[in-house]
């Protein structure tokens, strides 16, 4: 055996070494709710300090992929690590914003109570909420422009305000990896700008951001990397390289007219 025989594997070795430390590394992930797999044999590696979009049609398995990465749903198979360790050991470094419609906004809680939920791992079962917890929660509300709503019942918020509160709760988690499921769904342009500014701020602090995103027109503007998925992974990498008309066609099939793709900023053929 000469050193030469190792050369063909050098790329893989380098990739695995990167995956070893990556904020999130997924290998061979398959998730199924019934007979049909929702996510099939997906590999992906998140680049640290980058903002990555998960893009794909409805039912493509975007939410499922995120939930599996967080250990919310149990996969059929696959290996998932966060920062080089099993996700269960890294929960304190991961923040999650579920789809807004997935919770009951009639729940008896005020805005500040929801933000404090982000500090659950600090507070534990019986730890008292102290002044510095409240101050930090108000700080997080301030960063999303919701200071004045701290004592408002959550059912009395607009959709965009609810989304901001969810983001504030994630900020309260003070994590290294942020996962957000469709944070721009049903929010107006002003809120979208506010949210993206906060996310870019996190990225600029060196944190990693992963977002399930639906609006193809803004992918190139908002994100560094993109993962295209339609049950299987279609492509992953920097937006400038993989956000192409061919890849989008493969992701969306006939559902997206070619001319439409051509008009997308950043989606060169």
């Amino acid at each position, binding site marked *: 055996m000469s050193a030469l025989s190792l050369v063909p594997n050098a790329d893989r070795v380098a990739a695995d070494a990167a995956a070893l430390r990556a904020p999130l590394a997924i290998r061979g992930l398959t998730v199924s709710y019934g007979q049909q797999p929702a996510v099939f044999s997906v590999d992906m590696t998140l680049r640290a300090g980058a903002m990555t979009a998960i893009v794909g049609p409805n039912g493509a398995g975007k939410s499922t992929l995120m939930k599996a990465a*967080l250990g*919310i749903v149990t996969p059929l198979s696959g290996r998932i690590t966060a920062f080089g360790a099993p996700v269960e050991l890294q929960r304190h470094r991961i923040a999650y914003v579920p789809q807004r419609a997935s919770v009951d906004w009639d729940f008896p809680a005020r805005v500040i109570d929801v933000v404090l939920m982000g500090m*659950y791992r600090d507070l534990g079962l019986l730890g008292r909420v102290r002044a510095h917890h409240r101050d930090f929660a108000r700080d997080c509300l301030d960063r999303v422009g919701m200071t004045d709503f701290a004592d408002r019942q959550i059912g009395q918020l607009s959709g965009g305000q609810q989304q901001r509160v969810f983001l504030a709760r994630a900020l309260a988690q003070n994590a290294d990896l942020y996962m957000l499921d469709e944070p721009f769904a049903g929010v107006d342009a002003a809120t979208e700008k506010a949210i993206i500014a906060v996310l870019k701020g996190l990225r600029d602090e060196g944190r990693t951001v992963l977002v399930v995103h639906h609006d193809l027109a803004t992918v190139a503007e908002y994100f560094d990397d993109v993962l295209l998925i339609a049950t299987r992974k279609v492509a992953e990498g920097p937006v400038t390289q993989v956000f192409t008309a061919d890849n989008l066609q493969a992701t969306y099939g006939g559902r997206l007219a070619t001319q439409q793709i051509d008009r997308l900023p950043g989606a060169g053929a």
Partner: protein
Amino acid sequence: MGADFVTLSLTPILIGALAAVACALPGNFLVLRRQALIGDAISHVVLPGIVVAFLITGAVATLPMILGAACAALVAVALIEAVRRLGRIEPGAAMGVVFTAMFAGGVLLLEQSDTSSVHLDVEHALYGNLESLIWLDASGWGSLTDPVALAGLPPELGRIALTLVAVALFTGIFWRPLALSTFDEGFARSLGIRTGALGLALVVVSALAAVAAFDAVGSIIVIAMFICPPAAARLMTDRLGAQVGWSVVFAILSAILGYVLAGYGPGWFGLGASVSAAGMIATVSGVILALAAVFGPRRRGAIVAT
């Protein structure tokens, strides 16, 4: 209010109030999770457990019956989970199947076996025997400090008090994860909270409260207390802690008012016999819910106005 009250009314009122609070506490979370009918269902599924316990021991002993009821509740929870997973149907449908089947099984068992000689009938199951839980050893308020008289307290009082302590401890210790997983299960799981186990624990604790209350006051109060005080409390406030506080107040109020009205109410209206205390307590809790729905500051419509 003198010696008569202490002998005849004090313990039933106390037992009624403790049972009501023990059911209302977990009821808050069940109502918020849209699982309120679990309380009702539990009181049905425990029937076969009680009958089996009777058939095994051959006597109407309380402890085996409570154990039998608790086992039946656990079997029901396990069956629901199995039906839901294997049948791939929604939880509500799975509960419906399991509860009906188990209740029917209990009725069949009851009919097939010779239980007619004992007091194991439908009326008892529904209304309990709250009025009979009197304190014969008491001779007045002074008996509260008399060890001999205290030893003669009805055993149901101790059992329901112990149950309430257990339920209150569970609610207090797991308050945060319970609230979190009720509001946002996905987020709770992402924090590492084992929401499945917690939900199961909530059902088991509810079953414990239901079984202990069932033993003392019958299933009609159990059903009412799981739902009415928490639902009324939700209409009073927008904070979880305050809601649970209100539900405790409403539960106690229902027990006291209901018992007094059942005992003395018919007399005030010139009617002869008194009515069932359990039935009246349930009725009062329903009236409180109706009042909260009309006047509660957080009822629908009132919120828009603020």
